[in-house]
């Protein structure tokens, strides 16, 4: 394996905004359509799900795409959505899910 210089490094201790959500919290993805480099898929905007796990804090991709630092970082979550709630005509089992990584600034709290 050749030694590769300038490998991307992923520092883990980014200064970050406070974590708002915990595993099991119900959240809704913001239904908004800003321009730019967005890592929140269109198909999930406006849908409600449950936090499956916290992934750590990462620089904001919308900012990174503009050559800015993306700091303070945003917590990144894996959110679990029921397929039947995402696609009204979904033909599979009621338990089928799609799990998506979503940044905190794209999530709103939803009371249970």
């Amino acid at each position, binding site marked *: *394996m*050749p*030694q*590769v*210089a*300038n*490998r*991307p*490094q*992923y520092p883990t201790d980014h200064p970050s905004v406070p974590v708002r959500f915990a595993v099991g919290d119900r959240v809704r993805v913001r239904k908004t359509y800003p321009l730019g480099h967005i*890592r*929140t*898929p269109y*198909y999930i905007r406006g849908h409600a799900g449950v936090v499956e796990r916290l*992934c*750590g804090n*990462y620089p904001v*991709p919308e900012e990174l795409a503009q050559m800015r630092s993306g700091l303070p970082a945003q917590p*990144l979550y*894996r959110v679990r959505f029921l*397929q039947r709630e*995402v*696609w009204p005509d*979904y*033909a*599979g*089992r009621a*338990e*089928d*899910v*799609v*799990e*998506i*990584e*979503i*940044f905190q600034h794209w999530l709103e709290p939803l009371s249970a």
Partner: protein
Amino acid sequence: MSDAAEDKGLGDYRPLSYFQLMEVSLRELLLEKGIVTDAQVQATLEDMRARGPEAGARVVARAWTDPGFKARLLENGTRACEEFGLDVPALRLVVVENTPQVHNVIVCTLCSCYPRMLLGLPPDWYKSGNYRSRVVREPRAVLAEFGLRVPDHVSLRVHDSTADMRYLVLPMRPAQTAGWGEAQLAQIVTRDCMIGVAVPKASDSL
């Protein structure tokens, strides 16, 4: 234009596509400005080409034979791979486990995020609009097209790799493989099994 003529680099005057032109321009600018050297570009290409699904298969085979390793792999995929001696720079790995109740499949609907450090370059179909748009909304139909029929009593989890994490499916070990060693087990763990569009078969062993 035949592939052979294209390989010789002769007589092919087709204009570059938009993205090819963008890649060439960006690469040449980075070299010109001294941000990267040609040797670094070549070394990175070599590094990517040297990677293939064998590394992922070894990880799966170890998880099948070592319950402690499997637990650590599911807890923190990156750390477990490093403990296993794999060089996985910049990889943040989430390993998802297939069980008799749950089948997992990986996609990146936004582009083509893929655990390259463990599986090498992604197959073309993984990057296709067809797979990326359909596997989220009709996963059972798409898997059936790959020849994988997920039984009705098994629920499906689609993992959309949208941000900083990368995913690997830990398939179920086939029942007929009792007593096999890690090397033999690794042979039946294909790339597609680790994406979740196939499952390992004992009959695939050499």
